[in-house]
């Protein structure tokens, strides 16, 4: 909780962080049948798209191993690759600015805009800008920021967090979109047709693209070898922000760098297949510096902002570094049994699903994000589809271990105390078979006595939570151990 109290103290527009409300929001979202319908699409349809697309590789498994190896290499050589990227990008004429945190990034970008008399910017989808609250910072300085990816545009108008990494507004009913477009996107006639709604957004945003003085984009990959930034999209809004305005600002975090163009091309193939089941997205644009002198369109100035925001700190821990391998494809979301029941809102920040459960605790600290990394069945489906080689369940286990090491007894509530005590006793009994056996028999006795088991169902604790939707397991009349002993005795007697 420390971090965003600090941000609040600085008087800077606050990014809404709701990680501490995970359980509460998850419970609400489970009841949202409309969203659940769309989550079914993600869980049933997208993995098939992904699988079919991966089949176009002669050896899909090898392709995944190769992309994981590239990402591991990137993380291993991150500082050198970033330096190389910065040098080469600068040689291409781009202005590279490294910033320590979100506050600094926002200040730099706001100043760039102010100095150029910018009244509004058009924005391509960028998760880091959501992480740092760039839109809020611009708004607070009288500069409008128009999200131009259709899904981001809708969630911006509705002031809602993203539902999914790839389809942030996919669960929003067309009625709501129609209403908000009439209110705030100059649409004249109500409609429930997605294509007509899309057209209305096209018309509205086209005007913004045409007259924008500054375009802000994210970065999918930053090629160290050539100083090139790469963006991947289907709509064309990023290309618009890179073609029409005179100033382009592209924002990236440290881990976006890749060693060379060969690596980038392989990652592009894997990214597009993992993300949407496409061989390649409709538009992949690669910028190596601003426009050349005689070119009629394109940016006269290209700024590349490299944001740290806690990552070099995270980098110091060899185990945590793995989080930086992520390429934001979203495949983990679509295969996660938890995400596909609750959607993106409960994760409380820019990053949802398993990759959010890995990254958010590392950036925001474990206190406010405990429920995030615990909300996992450790099934490993995410790990198996991850093209970046991240072992999510293993990381959650490591987080649990670190959290346990730092836990202070006085800070625990009653339920947590009971569990701690339980484990202390368990740890003591596990090396004492006779007492273990005795405890098993006593537990059996207790569970079969309603006088004891019924109250347990009412106190906040494992029994109450289990019996929420299941019967208590019925202990057998004999433990296996007792059965074995009886068996041996019978054979001996014979």
């Amino acid at each position, binding site marked *: 909780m420390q971090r965003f109290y600090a941000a609040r103290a600085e008087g800077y527009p606050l990014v809404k962080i709701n990680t501490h409300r995970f359980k509460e929001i998850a419970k609400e979202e489970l009841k949202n049948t409309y969203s659940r319908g769309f989550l079914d699409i993600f869980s049933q349809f997208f993995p098939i798209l992904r699988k079919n697309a991966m089949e176009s590789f002669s050896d899909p498994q090898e392709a995944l191993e190769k992309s994981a190896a590239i990402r591991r290499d990137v993380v291993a050589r991150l500082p050198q690759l970033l330096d190389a990227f910065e040098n080469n990008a600068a040689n291409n004429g781009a202005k590279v600015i490294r910033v320590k945190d979100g506050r600094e990034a926002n200040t730099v970008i706001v100043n760039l805009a102010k100095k150029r008399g910018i009244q509004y910017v058009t924005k391509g989808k960028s998760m880091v800008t959501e992480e740092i609250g760039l839109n809020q910072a611009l708004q607070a300085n009288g500069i409008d920021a128009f999200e131009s990816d259709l899904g981001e545009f809708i969630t911006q108008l509705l002031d809602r967090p993203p539902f999914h990494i790839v389809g942030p507004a*996919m669960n929003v009913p067309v009625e709501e979109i129609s209403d908000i477009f009439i209110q705030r996107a100059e649409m004249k006639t109500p409609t429930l047709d997605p294509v007509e709604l899309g057209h209305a957004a096209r018309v509205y945003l086209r005007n913004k693209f045409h007259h924008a003085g500054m375009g802000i984009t994210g970065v999918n990959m930053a090629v160290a070898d*050539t100083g090139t930034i790469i963006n991947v999209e289907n709509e064309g809004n990023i290309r618009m922000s890179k*073609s029409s305005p005179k100033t382009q600002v592209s924002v990236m975090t440290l881990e976006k760098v890749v060693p060379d163009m060969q690596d980038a091309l392989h990652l592009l193939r894997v990214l597009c297949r993992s993300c949407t089941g496409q*061989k390649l997205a409709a538009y992949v644009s690669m910028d190596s510096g*601003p426009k050349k002198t005689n*070119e009629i369109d394109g940016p006269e100035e290209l700024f590349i902002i490299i944001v740290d925001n806690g990552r070099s700190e995270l980098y110091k821990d060899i185990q945590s570094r793995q989080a930086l391998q992520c390429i934001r494809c979203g495949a983990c979301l679509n295969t996660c049994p938890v995400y596909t029941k609750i959607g993106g809102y409960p994760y409380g920040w820019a990053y949802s699903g398993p990759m959010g459960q890995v990254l958010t605790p590392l950036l925001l600290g474990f206190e406010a994000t405990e429920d995030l990394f615990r909300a996992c069945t450790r099934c490993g489906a995410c790990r198996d589809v991850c093209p970046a080689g991240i072992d999510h369940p293993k990381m959650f286990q490591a987080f649990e271990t670190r959290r346990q090491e730092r836990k202070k007894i006085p800070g625990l509530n009653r339920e947590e105390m009971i569990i701690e005590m339980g484990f202390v006793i368990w740890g003591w009994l596990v090396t004492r078979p006779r007492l273990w056996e005795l405890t098993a028999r006593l537990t059996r006795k207790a569970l079969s006595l309603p006088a004891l088991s019924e109250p347990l169902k009412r106190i906040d604790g494992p029994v109450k939570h289990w019996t929420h939707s299941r019967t208590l397991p019925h202990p057998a009349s004999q433990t296996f151990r007792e059965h074995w002993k009886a068996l041996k005795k019978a054979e001996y007697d014979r």
Partner: protein
Amino acid sequence: MIDDFIKEITDQTGEVYRVKKCDEAAETLVNIAQEKQIIKLIASTDSVIRRIDLAGVAAKSGIEIRTAGDFKDRDAFKAYAFEHADAGITGVDYGVAESGTLCLVHDENQPRLVSLAPLYHIALLPMKHLVPTYEQAAAQIFSTNAALPSQVSFITGPSMTADIQATSFKGMHGPKHLIVILLGC
């Protein structure tokens, strides 16, 4: 390889025409324009486009064809691209068969907005520019000692989205229609 390329493009709803000679290309262009009711065309001036007698096309068909050089400044060019041009026509530096992708290297003869702003993108691709995978294109563009191009676009099909209720449609911010004329010349 050509067949793979054509299949990939048509899978993306692109249309493909094959012509042997450049004058056939001009004729095909006129037919396309008539069929799609294209009246105003913005064109690149790259080495492929220059093989077509665009002036002749304009004269013959009454289509208004403009290039970047016709405008007094950037703003005038942008106004035409955003508000007037029904179609943009460009050459293509590389056609990549593995995904039916058009690779455009942007420079003063290949403005960015020509293949982005209008609803139609007509792309002239010499068959000799076809390569099997992205690597061949990238190797030539990125490994020279000369300055790197300011932008390279890889275009695979028209602009699209499925962000509203997972309903997919073409023509979000970029072109809605992609037409490729494969040149034998």
